């Protein structure tokens, strides 16, 4: 299709396509692969569709560094990664193959624990200590914020445990959804209350 819009010079060059999605897809894949081989791909990411919505998965060379729900705004999460980890970020699904597969199995009820290298660069101090406690809460069971606080060595830090769960950079994989209120109600969740209920119901049914 040709057009009369633009200057005469733009019309003269109009047969050079301004958009060539097929070529750019090919080139982006090639760039991701070469960046990976050259050690330049500090953060690789992809999104996966799950029963709790689209999830962003991001990994450094050390391991999975971020899992984010759609309600957390994937663009904002990528901007945060650029700021706090490295701006050398590309959509590069290969590094997230194992994480994507294990999440599929988890949502299908065929996986009860994740076996992935993790990079906890986004969790510091006490929050990180809290997160280190969570994998010991077994699939299908729950624990109160108060008990997690006690296990982390600070029984009075119940509120800080809540914050650590709310800011968990690796939800699902580090199971903060298994931490609930002492009265048995679910409490808050970065992915929203409906997502937390879905995960607890999934694990209770398996």
């Amino acid at each position: 299709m040709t057009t009369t819009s633009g200057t005469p010079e733009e019309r003269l060059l109009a047969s050079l396509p301004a958009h060539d999605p097929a070529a750019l897809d090919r080139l982006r894949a090639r760039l991701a692969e070469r960046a990976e081989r050259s050690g330049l791909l500090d953060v690789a990411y992809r999104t996966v569709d799950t029963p709790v919505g689209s999830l962003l998965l991001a990994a450094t060379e050390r391991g999975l560094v971020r899992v984010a729900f759609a309600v957390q705004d994937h663009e904002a999460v990528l901007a945060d990664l650029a700021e706090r980890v490295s701006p050398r970020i590309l959509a590069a699904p290969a590094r997230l193959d194992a994480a994507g597969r294990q999440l599929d199995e988890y949502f299908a009820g065929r996986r009860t624990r994740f076996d992935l290298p993790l990079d906890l660069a986004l969790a510091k101090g006490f929050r990180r200590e809290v997160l280190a406690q969570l994998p010991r809460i077994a699939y299908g069971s729950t624990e109160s914020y108060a008990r997690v606080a006690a296990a982390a060595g600070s029984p009075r830090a119940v509120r800080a445990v809540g914050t650590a769960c709310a800011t968990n950079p690796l939800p699902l994989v580090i199971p903060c959804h298994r931490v609930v209120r002492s009265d048995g109600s679910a409490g808050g969740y970065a992915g929203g209350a409906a997502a937390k209920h879905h995960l607890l119901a999934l694990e209770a049914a398996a």
Partner: protein
Amino acid sequence: MEPFERIVTDHGPVVLRVCRAVLGPDDAEDAWAETFLAAMRAYPDLPPGANVQAWLVTIAHRKAIDMLRANRRRALPVGDVPERPAETGRPDAWDGDLWNALRALPERQRAAVAYHYLAGLPYREIAAITGGTPDAARRAAADGIRKLRGTYPARPADQTGADR
């Protein structure tokens, strides 16, 4: 600082267009890949507020010069190169008639046309990239366009806007 992925999304198409106009269909994609790999390496050191598009075109220009030099080293005499048919088989495809016309321009003119009319860079920026003065860059672009008009006449549809 924006994620580099965003830079690829925002500027990848224009850089590809520039690489195609300067280097043609055989080398454009290699130049694009080299450009973005080098840009990704340097990206964390890019000063805040820098003109990202001019920066990318500067890198692409260096890559293009390297490739043109390498091509000349193993070059056949130009007369022996057969006329390249349009790869898509369409008579209006860029890699046929337009590339043949662009390829006939001196490199400096082809670069000035691409950087000004495809990347939208002002002549001052182009002079900083290619060397020489802004006036010389302006003349190179004008001469290039004039020659293109002679060797690559606009088709009737380009003048009437009719779809094909």
